[in-house]
């Protein structure tokens, strides 16, 4: 594995790291494909779990789930390590890098020196690849950045040992082995069916299409909230979870569309191209929804009914895609 590292720009950190590590380990795979077979797509609305006083809104599965699902579906051997102190974590990382390995890390966003200050928040499940080091720090390929970056030893230690929800505890991972034969078609079929089932038939009211309905009802109730700033902050929070945090646009829906069009080629099924463009339209609808939320945030006159209506359109068109995919009997 002592080849030169080639940085590639991706939309999302975790799928980007998985794609980059796999590609360098000798199995070239796109980010969208890693995201798709890793069952990255979902929707969850958890009003009980609060992030700075706002309910958790997620368009993708919990951190590390893409890595673990891809590992399972492709039969890889991934070694994940955690550490009790920064010192041994740093020494171990230096050892691995000196051995020519490319290492995936889980870090906090807040302490990464190369992040623009406006975008630093306490989010502990960011992923990046360390591919080398120099005298002062590590050479980093952060998939959501256009070019490779660097971080000093101390700064990276802090980011790796940030505390709080999803505390990384220095977590790092390497791909140890790739099986000789990989049945990609089988992995794709399984992944698509699983995502459709989760979105359509979940028993939990806060997940999948039911979760979107729950968020819609919460939006309709916004005008009754006692704090008048709350509605604006709430809608802004949704936009950030959908667009800012590296989703490839439209809350990962556009990335999933890219995945479906790749699947059409792998499986040789033209219908998947149709599904891909349908999913593309879903992504566009989510962006229209974000746009209408943003108008409300700016303090313009707005009606929650109109915003809820836009959200309902997203939900309905998403349902059509999943029913179409189920109908293909992959």
């Amino acid at each position, binding site marked *: 594995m002592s080849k030169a590292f080639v940085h590639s*720009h*991706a*939309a999302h950190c975790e799928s980007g790291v998985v794609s980059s590590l796999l590609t360098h380990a000798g199995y070239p795979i796109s*980010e*969208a494909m890693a995201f798709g077979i890793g069952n990255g797509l979902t929707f969850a609305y958890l009003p009980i779990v*609060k992030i*700075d*006083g706002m309910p958790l809104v997620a368009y993708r599965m919990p951190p590390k789930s893409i890595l673990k699902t891809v590992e399972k579906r492709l039969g890889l051997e991934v070694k994940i390590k955690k550490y009790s102190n920064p010192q041994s974590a740093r020494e171990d990382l230096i050892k691995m890098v000196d051995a020519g390995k490319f290492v995936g890390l889980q870090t906090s966003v*807040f302490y990464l020196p190369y992040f*623009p200050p*406006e*975008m*630093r*928040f*306490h989010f502990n499940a960011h992923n990046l690849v360390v591919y080398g080091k120099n005298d002062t720090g590590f050479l980093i390929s952060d998939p*959501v*950045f*256009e070019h490779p970056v660097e971080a000093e030893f101390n700064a990276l230690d*802090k980011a790796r040992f*940030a*505390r*709080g*929800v999803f505390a990384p505890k220095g977590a790092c991972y390497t791909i140890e082995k790739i099986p000789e034969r990989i049945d990609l078609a089988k992995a794709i079929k399984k992944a698509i069916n699983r995502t459709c089932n989760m979105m359509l038939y979940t028993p939990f009211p806060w997940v999948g299409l039911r979760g979107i309905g729950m968020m819609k009802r919460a939006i309709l109730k916004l005008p009754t909230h006692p704090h008048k700033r709350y509605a*604006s*902050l709430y809608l*802004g*929070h949704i*936009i*950030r979870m959908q*667009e*800012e945090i*590296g989703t*490839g*646009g*439209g809350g990962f829906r*556009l*990335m999933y*569309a*890219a995945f479906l*069009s790749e699947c059409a080629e792998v499986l040789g099924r033209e219908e998947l191209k149709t599904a*891909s*463009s349908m999913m*593309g339209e879903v*992504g*566009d609808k989510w*962006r229209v929804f*974000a*746009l209408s939320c*943003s108008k409300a*945030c*700016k303090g313009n006159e707005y009606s929650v009914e109109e915003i809820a209506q836009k959200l309902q359109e997203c939900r309905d068109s998403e349902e059509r895609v999943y029913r179409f995919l189920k109908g293909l009997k992959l």
Partner: protein
Amino acid sequence: MKRDEAPQDNIAMYHGGRKALYAVADEGKFEITQSSGWSVEEMATLQAVDEFERLEREAYREFSEGKNSPLGVWMYRRRMSIATLSQCSDFWQWSINRHLKPDVFKRLSPKKIALYCDVFDITAAELFNPKEPK
């Protein structure tokens, strides 16, 4: 979204960087497209940043009037809520609420002060005397 529809709003917080979006390229295939930012996203992020800055200024005003301990100023300056600070420091939320009172804060043991200093990455002198926010 078609490739030429990908927003190119040159938003300031990217500092010239660009972000990857998925858009339809020429042959109808989705591909990664670089975007210099979307004003909608910029507005939402700046709103979240502004909210922390507003809370910080308010905490500073109350601190200078003696109604609040300097803890609140540092908490919001580091973009934390009481819940986040609690997770990062192992203090219970109700303890942090108490520490926000000036009288309680004054009596804190050096050990607890050191813990807060570690979380905020500052010295004790800085913790007790935060600079005025911009």
